[in-house]
């Protein structure tokens, strides 16, 4: 049971390049989330998805694009990377929405933008 995986685990890119971070879950969870983690800011929600083809903005969506054509995949794209997007990115999933949802997190992707 693979659970939730992220790829790549580490990525170095240059300013202006497009970067896609992948997230895959094997549980058929309805909800998926993308967070970024920065010192002093904890976890901030970038985008989330309640189901395939349904996505919504979180707290810090600018500069990011998501899609969800299949339930199990939720890629995050930085269309033109900036240095301020250097961060650790976490993908998470939960069985359903609402109050009682436990989120399961992937191992994270450390992205450095030079």
């Amino acid at each position, binding site marked *: 049971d693979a659970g939730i995986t992220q790829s790549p685990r580490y990525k170095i890119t240059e300013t202006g390049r497009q970067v896609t971070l992948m997230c895959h879950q094997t549980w058929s969870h309805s909800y998926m989330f993308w967070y970024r983690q920065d010192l002093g800011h904890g*976890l901030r*929600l970038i985008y989330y998805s*309640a189901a395939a083809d349904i996505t919504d903005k979180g707290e810090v969506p600018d500069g990011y694009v998501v899609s969800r054509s299949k339930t199990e995949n939720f890629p995050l794209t930085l269309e033109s990377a900036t240095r301020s997007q250097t961060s650790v990115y*976490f993908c*998470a999933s939960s069985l359903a*929405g609402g109050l009682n*949802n436990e989120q399961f*997190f992937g191992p994270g992707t450390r992205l450095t933008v030079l």
Partner: protein
Amino acid sequence: AQSVTQPDIHITVSEGASLELRCNYSYGATPYLFWYVQSPGQGLQLLLKYFSGDTLVQGIKGFEAEFKRSQSSFNLRKPSVHWSDAAEYFCGFNTNAGKSTFGDGTTLTVKP
């Protein structure tokens, strides 16, 4: 505004000593509260959660947390800390919209 405050950015305790990590929240209704732990280089793992019932909840790894409505707090405790508890701890709550709000985290260092 909905928010979570973890007042302590960094805490250091000796192995075997007791631990309390503070968490305060601001939310318009009774929140669904949780604590997650993040070990170095890892993702987050749920320690425990609370929505209703007994205000003292037990979690994994010997942790417990107490919900105090009058203080809008949900502090995490452990009677005797082990070196393997060194990690970052996040408090937060879920909303009806299916999203979660996290605090900024508290980093725990355990001295031998």
